[in-house]
């Protein structure tokens, strides 16, 4: 018997099929994101594609905590914000240069890492619920600090700034024969496309990093800690050290995603980075995708972002199409989109109790 035979799950048919389906969905999403600027040429779609890239990384790094290790934290957007604000403040004050991104973003990421280790050491020994409370408190304090130090952070309004020259719409990446910016399939090779691929590739690297971690020996130890912390300690793993380390890794990844987000958006504010609404979004993405299945983050983040952005449009179209019926158009009124989003979530959780990827791959069927 070979290694892979022993390690892979028993090859029962539904499981294998489920796996195929999940990876096929993820592949379609990945390809759509890779060619998004060519496939979806309107501004709004470009914005959604970049947001999906960022949120895949946020959801995946959050899944490393909650799904793989069993750590419940509400501070993920805090770390995300630290990276974003680091880059934003530097871009605003020292000019739109790469050196600002690297210095400011680097400092933000470093602060996130240090803070994560401090929170980890101080409170990962205690009960999970208490740890969750500590992260909640830290995230709230961060929100207050950001609104208090408004000279520095822009307060509630946030900071608007420019991104490095490479990403300016006027930048010509490739020139055509006529000396104008080259168009490929109708898409200008300008700074905007450079900015999108900066986001896409950065997120790809971060996601790849996370996917490697969960496959490595470290990944199995994290699952062991989730499954039975006491036994993990008894066979020789220092649980507190592992937990602190993974909390730090997740914080660093979230902060790096924040830096990328800040460069893309050219705006950083509490609503775009630190808010608890985003924290809940990330949590829902992980739950919908499937906890403890890296690939679930891809599906969850995509589904949820698309729903958030396009449900209104879809409903408007549907309401128009059904305008001859009684009552129905009323229910489909775009103003009721949150209601429908809620119903969608409830249905998803009902039919996919372990998340889409989790349920299809028969993971987490046993608790």
């Amino acid at each position, binding site marked *: 018997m070979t290694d892979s035979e022993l*390690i892979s799950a028993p090859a029962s048919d539904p499981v294998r099929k489920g796996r195929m389906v999940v990876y096929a969905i993820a592949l379609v999403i990945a390809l759509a994101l890779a060619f998004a600027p060519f496939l979806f040429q309107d501004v709004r779609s470009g914005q959604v594609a970049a947001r999906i890239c960022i949120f895949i990384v946020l959801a995946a790094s959050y899944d490393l905590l909650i799904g793989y290790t069993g750590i419940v934290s509400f501070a993920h957007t805090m770390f995300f914000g630290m990276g974003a604000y680091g880059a934003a403040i530097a871009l605003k004050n020292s000019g739109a240069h790469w050196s600002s991104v690297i210095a400011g973003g680097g400092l933000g990421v470093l602060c996130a890492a240090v803070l994560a280790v401090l929170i980890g050491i101080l409170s990962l020994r205690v009960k999970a619920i208490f740890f969750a409370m500590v992260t909640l408190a830290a995230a709230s304090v961060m929100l207050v600090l950001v609104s208090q130090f408004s000279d520095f952070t822009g307060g509630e309004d946030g900071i608007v700034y420019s991104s490095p020259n490479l990403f300016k719409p006027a930048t010509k990446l490739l020139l055509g024969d006529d000396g104008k910016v080259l168009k490929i399939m109708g898409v200008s090779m300008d700074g905007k496309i450079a900015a999108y691929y900066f986001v896409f590739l950065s997120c790809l690297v971060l996601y790849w990093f996370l996917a490697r971690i969960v496959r490595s020996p470290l990944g*199995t130890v994290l699952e062991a800690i989730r499954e*039975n912390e006491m*036994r993990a300690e*008894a*066979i020789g*793993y220092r649980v507190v050290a592992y937990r602190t380390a993974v909390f730090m890794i997740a914080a660093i990844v979230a902060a790096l995603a924040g830096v990328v987000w800040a460069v893309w958006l050219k705006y950083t504010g509490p609503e775009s980075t630190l808010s608890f609404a985003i924290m809940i979004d990330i949590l829902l993405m992980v739950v919908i995708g499937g906890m403890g299945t890296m690939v679930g983050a891809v599906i969850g983040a995509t589904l949820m972002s698309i729903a958030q952005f396009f449900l209104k449009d879809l409903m408007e179209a549907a309401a128009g199409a059904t305008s001859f019926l009684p009552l129905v158009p009323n229910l489909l009124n775009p103003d009721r989109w949150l209601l429908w989003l809620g119903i969608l979530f409830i249905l998803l959780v009902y039919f996919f109790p372990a998340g889409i990827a989790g349920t299809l791959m028969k993971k987490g069927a046993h*608790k």
Partner: protein
Amino acid sequence: MTFPSLETRGLTIRFGGHIAVNNVSCSFRPGELTVIVGPNGAGKTTWFNLVSGQLTPSEGSILLRGEDITALAPSARAKRGIGRAFQLTNLFPGLSVFENVRLAVQAKRGTGPRLFRPAAAYREISEIARAHLETARLESVADLPAAALPHGDQRKLEVALLLAMEPEIFMFDEPTAGMSVDEAPVILELIDTIRKDSSKTVLLVEHKMDVVRALADRIIVLHNGEQVADGAPETVMASEIVREIYLGIPAGEAA
């Protein structure tokens, strides 16, 4: 004289007013199998918890090859060679049987600093894990989640984890409890094999008298948290106090 492999000195733990382990001092040598007996609630499991570090003593100390380890975390004790199987099955329920054992091998052998190498690429660790699975007769269920195993197989896996830790001190807490008559011998033969290795110290909590007779080099009796007897099996089993408080064996049979 060399140090005993393991020693407890005046080990005591109180839960509120209740003294679960009271001033237990004893030492163990490599190549010796000690059976710890005592009625339910005598403090056997609690004493194990103190030695392997799940509980911190109110008083007293624990020495491993002469070194005081009382303040060390369970993981540090495991790294130093104290291995423990639990009375109540205590596995990684959602992970496969193979992963359960592989984790214990990995803890012992280490994987080095290469964070990015897939776990499956550590062939040696996988092979050792597989060997332990074979020893515990679990090859056929290697891919099932631990939670899906019948009780007897879970007990075997509990022991396989202990083997995979490759400890110096083996602590078994009622390893065959609840196992069927045809399953128990697998575990007992394993313990017997370990016993014959003169470098290993074995501590075994066991109730079944035939098992005690077959394996014990020495018997310690706990009662109400106190150590009431310690010595060669024949002597201990014949002593008045033991028959009185615990064994309840007819006088003739103990000889």
